[in-house]
């Protein structure tokens, strides 16, 4: 990131990956995979008081094809695991995952026969959001952390 003289005036130069990262961080299209109580807190984050639109995350996409980010909201049961795994596989690269709430991060209080103990047994997770359910402010800090991660993502990752 530097400022160079240009015949007509000044110009800002930057690396291509920083430019792409800067553009992508404010336009993440989240796919809210809401199953349980955290879904109500996600609704509060989406509604006008905690408005996640301020971060450019206004447009939730309900199909994995257009989603950059999968937010796993709530408890994932044993019956839901193949569905969630398929949806993660069908998302386009570069994708990231937020596990919202204790149930998605580690099974939470439900250490039982019918609950998957944490979504990271199915696919790698970028950000774990603590709380049962996490407050909207916690979720917004998770967004900011993910923006930072997306900004510094190199363009030479896998699949180039």
């Amino acid at each position, binding site marked *: 990131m530097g400022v160079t003289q240009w015949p007509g005036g000044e110009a800002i130069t930057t690396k291509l990956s920083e430019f792409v990262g800067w553009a992508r961080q404010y336009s993440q299209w989240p796919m809210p995979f809401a199953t349980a109580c955290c879904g109500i807190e996600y609704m509060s984050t989406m509604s006008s008081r905690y408005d996640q639109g301020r971060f450019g995350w206004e447009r939730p996409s309900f199909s994995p094809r257009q989603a950059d980010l999968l937010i796993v909201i709530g408890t994932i049961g*044993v*019956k839901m*695991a*193949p569905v969630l*795994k*398929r949806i*993660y*596989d069908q998302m386009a690269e570069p994708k990231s995952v937020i596990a919202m709430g204790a149930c998605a991060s*580690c099974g939470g209080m439900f*250490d*039982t*026969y*019918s609950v*998957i*103990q*944490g979504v*990271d*047994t*199915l*696919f*790698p*997770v970028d950000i774990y959001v603590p709380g049962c359910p996490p407050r909207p402010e916690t979720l917004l800090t998770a967004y900011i952390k993910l923006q930072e991660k997306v900004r510094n993502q190199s363009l030479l990752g*896998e699949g180039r």
Partner: protein
Amino acid sequence: MTREEKQVKLLDDIQKQFGDKIVSAKMDYGMPVVVIDNSIHHDIFAWLKGHDEWKFDHFIDITAVDYKDSRDARFEVVVHLRTHTHNLKVRIKTPLADSSDEKSMPELPTLSDVFLGASWSEREIFDLMGIKFANHPRMTRLLMPDNYEGHPLRKDFPVKGPHRGSFPRGTVVSNKRREPAVAPTTKAKPADQLLPNTPWEKQRKPLSDKPVEAKEGGDA
């Protein structure tokens, strides 16, 4: 007549109608409770629903309880009904002995032709408690995946599930970025492969399409 008199009259009517088949009929915490023999399990509900004075047409709830070792009849199906003509609720309990050999399941006639509300709740009892209901339109599992073995709400079923040795709380889970395994097809898999049952390091490995054999002393 007051609520108590109505309840006592109801118990007498049932006693008169089904006589010896009624094991006991008494009041319990302000609600009439009738314990019946499982041979009249279907007839008593048809009679109660069609009865002109006691029109028990509101189906409230059906559930099952597993009294393993504390009673000779292991299971007990409990049904709650309600009538709006006399504003009363009744609880009808049907003790049911466990099936002799391992393969078959205890059996009861279904109520879904008398009360439509019983269809899914009976499926849930079949799924979680392992009680089969004869000529039920769709006797499959309701809550667990279709190819799940075992009936979770039975007393001999561990809370954490038979297939899973859960790692002790507080172990730090390594979160190094792993390549997602390329699963050629994600047809609904049996529960074993979803939750490999080997020590915690292997359990953290994401799904692989190979069926997981239970090996002792897993490799490094």
